[in-house]
């Protein structure tokens, strides 16, 4: 029997009896990826286009990525359907157990969350090593320790790698792991898409790291044409890597949005959603609808490099402005893809550690959605100096400055929550407060950049570079680390060492501010971004920055040590609710079972209802199981 009609009783669904003969796992994936690269390169070179090498490399990367996914096992389900076999609508369980399952295709959102976490930390390490090499090279103005072309390759790879990390490092690990728990469901809407959104990331990282084999690329993360069209085959890494990440954003966004819209448990109404879910939700909106623009622009670049079309070549009917518009039409929502879930994390953690209700919940939601909306109307502030349509400058100046209103709301909500709180000053809370401080500096410096006259001096200088490092490193990365300290016990079953955590916080906070604060001054003293050399009188300042940057990197290694040590070398399962907080994920046992909830929970209260002696628990975990049969609509529960 394949599919039982739902008459009564649970539907009995049987897994596909026949299986693809070849075992699908990560090793098959790697072997097939190598083979796919070879096939793609041969095929591309056989076309004998004007620049056969680009075609070969681009096709090689694409085939390698597809074959890797096939080898990992993504083709099994569609192929089985194509062969007309009986298939189950739901994912089969994982074939692998123990640590091995983290290295293989798994459709369990909790496994995917951990996979994402490790992959993102690794990518952050690679990007950080790039940053260290950049700062090493900048120790002396001239001669460069690293040759200028290699230096620019390092800058580009550091930036693209960190953009990968920043766009996926919250929604990937924490969104995938905790959104289903927080809205009370056992499944994601599209588990295969969810897994795909993770498995697109390793090929993207590897392809990006392969750029130096073909000479690297010197374009920065913006990839402005025609410089990028001039670049060697190293730039093909940018095209394919970024396309894969864009695809991951779309796929993860479709899954996340549908899950939140459709699979909320009974009682989980829109105004009861944890604020973290709102953060992920709004970022997913941006990711889903902005990333395709980038994908289209990258396809145009790929065509320019292989078919010799002229999208971006002004002397042949194209325009570099086309790339700038498309790129920033994606690129500016992209930076809010970074920061919105970080807002979600901070506003989620503050009430739990301040032990007060989230102050102004609805206003916070309006703030997040306001940022989501406004972020579509600001992209040209990156192009104030570019010569495009000067008449539009006042509009984009105003819309950019408008964004500080919803951002200000986030600060207001944070302050309202902190007001007369009972703050338990644990490590996640320290990082939250650090976030508020750093993001404040990032936000204020952003206002300096938003006014056209002041932007004339600051645009493209180290000032803007310092600005976005304050928002992304000081903001998003601090939020990620807060989330890691907070949720690590639930994700891995191990507490991170709190003493080491406090040392890590102060170390990182001081080193970060010492390293990046002087860069505002460097920008004001006319040091442009992405230069391998600089004025001799700025050497003291740059050496100061480099040394503190090394100290900052050391603090991250210290953090990595804490993670490895606490995860693998302390053999004590964390308590189920170490922080004694109300949120539903902490009502569940540690370690979590394969299935999140034995019965579909019924939400009865707010997760932030502290200080109210009569507060109901967040959810009734022993709710009626047959509610799930009607789907997971958020039918209000009579109270």
């Amino acid at each position: 029997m394949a599919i039982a009609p739902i008459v009564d009783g649970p539907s009995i669904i049987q897994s596909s009896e026949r299986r693809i003969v070849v075992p699908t796992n990560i090793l098959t994936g790697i072997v097939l990826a190598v083979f796919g690269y070879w096939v793609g390169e041969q095929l591309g070179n056989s076309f004998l286009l004007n620049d056969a090498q680009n075609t070969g490399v681009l096709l090689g990367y694409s085939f390698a990525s597809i074959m890797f996914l096939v080898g990992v096992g993504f083709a099994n389900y569609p192929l089985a359907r194509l062969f007309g076999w009986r298939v189950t609508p739901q994912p089969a369980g994982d074939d692998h157990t123990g640590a091995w399952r983290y290295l293989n295709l798994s459709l369990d959102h909790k496994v995917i969350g951990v996979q994402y976490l490790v992959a993102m930390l690794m990518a952050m390490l690679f990007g950080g090593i790039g940053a260290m090499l950049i700062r090493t090279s900048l120790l002396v103005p001239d001669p460069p320790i690293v040759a200028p072309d290699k230096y620019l390759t390092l800058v580009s790879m550091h930036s693209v790698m960190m953009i990968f990390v920043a766009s996926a490092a919250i929604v990937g690990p924490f969104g995938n792991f905790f959104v289903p728990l927080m809205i009370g469901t056992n499944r994601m809407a599209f588990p295969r898409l969810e897994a795909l959104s993770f498995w697109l990331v390793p090929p993207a990282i590897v392809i990006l790291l392969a750029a130096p084999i073909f000479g690297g690329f010197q374009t920065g993360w913006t990839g402005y044409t025609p410089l990028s069209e001039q670049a060697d085959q190293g730039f093909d890494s940018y095209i394919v890597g970024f396309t894969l990440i864009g695809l991951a954003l779309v796929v993860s966004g479709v899954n996340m949005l549908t899950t939140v819209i459709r699979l909320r448990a009974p009682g989980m109404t829109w105004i009861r959603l944890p604020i973290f879910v709102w953060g992920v939700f709004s970022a997913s909106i941006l990711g889903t609808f902005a990333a395709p623009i980038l994908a289209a622009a990258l396809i145009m670049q790929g065509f320019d490099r292989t078919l010799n079309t002229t999208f971006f070549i002004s002397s042949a009917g194209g325009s570099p402005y086309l790339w700038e518009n498309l790129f920033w039409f994606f690129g500016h929502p992209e930076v809010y893809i970074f920061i919105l879930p970080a807002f979600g994390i901070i506003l989620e953690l503050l009430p739990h550690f301040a032990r007060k209700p989230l102050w102004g919940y609805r206003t916070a939601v309006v703030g997040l959605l306001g940022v989501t909306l406004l972020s579509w109307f600001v992209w040209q502030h990156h192009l104030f100096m570019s010569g495009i349509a000067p008449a539009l400058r006042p509009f984009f100046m105003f819309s950019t400055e408008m964004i500080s209103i919803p951002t200000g709301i986030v600060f207001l909500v944070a302050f309202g929550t902190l007001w007369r709180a009972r703050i338990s000053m644990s490590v996640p809370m320290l990082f939250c407060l650090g976030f508020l401080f750093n993001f404040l500096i990032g936000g204020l410096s952003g206002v300096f950049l938003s006014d056209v006259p002041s932007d004339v001096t600051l645009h493209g200088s180290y000032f803007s570079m310092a600005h976005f490092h304050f928002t992304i490193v000081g903001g998003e990365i601090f939020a990620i680390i807060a989330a890691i300290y907070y949720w690590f016990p639930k994700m891995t079953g191990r507490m991170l060492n709190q003493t080491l955590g406090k040392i890590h916080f102060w170390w990182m906070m001081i080193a970060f501010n010492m390293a990046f604060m002087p860069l505002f001054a460097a920008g004001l003293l006319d040091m442009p971004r992405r230069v391998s050399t600089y004025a001799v009188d700025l050497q003291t300042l740059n050496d100061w920055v480099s040394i503190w940057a090394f100290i900052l990197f050391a603090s991250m290694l210290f953090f990595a040590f804490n993670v490895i040590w606490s995860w693998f070398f302390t053999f004590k399962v964390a308590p189920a609710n170490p922080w004694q907080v109300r949120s539903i994920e902490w009502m569940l046992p540690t370690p979590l079972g394969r299935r999140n909830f034995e019965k579909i929970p019924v939400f009865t209260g707010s997760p932030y209802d502290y200080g109210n002696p009569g507060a109901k628990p967040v959810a009734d975990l022993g709710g009626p199981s047959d509610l799930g049969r009607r789907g997971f609509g958020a039918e209000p529960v009579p109270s």
Partner: protein
Amino acid sequence: MSQQSQQSRGLPNLVASAPEWSTDVDARVSSVGMWIFMGANAMLFVAFFFAFFYLRALNNADNWMNIWTVHPRRYIGGIIVLLLVACAGLVVMGARSAAKAPSTARMFFWLALLAGVLCCGFQVYEFKHLGFDPQMGGGYASVFVGLKSVLMAEIVVAMIWLGTHIAQATPIGDTTARPASAAAFGNFLVMLAGVGVVAYLVLYFI
């Protein structure tokens, strides 16, 4: 297959009886998910249409459509877009009858596949007889080649996808059991057809 052997293969027993995997849940997520995906996909084409109008307005180096560019023939483009619309319409009709009459659905799907494959064939023919070189044709040539290739790539993938629906349109097949997924797929093809129509008007008439 018994519960026991599933367990031994690492399949947890939740698969057997979990209410969250019932088909009506699936129906709900597939339609919403497809709408969101269609929105994302539409943005991909929006970028290309933006490129069309932007480059056309700029007309850099007086090279939007230079004298060497032969305007593609409208009747071939018309055939391509008609086949695409027919394909989408047939899939929608097939999806409507998937639950009740699998054999009718199968017939519609087969016809849709035929239309789709023919559409791709004509597209290849058009690319072979372009009348301009993308390298020398100016902005128009670039947008034409870019937009049409991406659309064709999506049609090809959609035809493979349609193949799975044909294979599963047996009385006990997946498409029959879960008509919502076939309906969602039909929506996707309708969107592609819509893009095709707009692309036809834009690329051949403006």
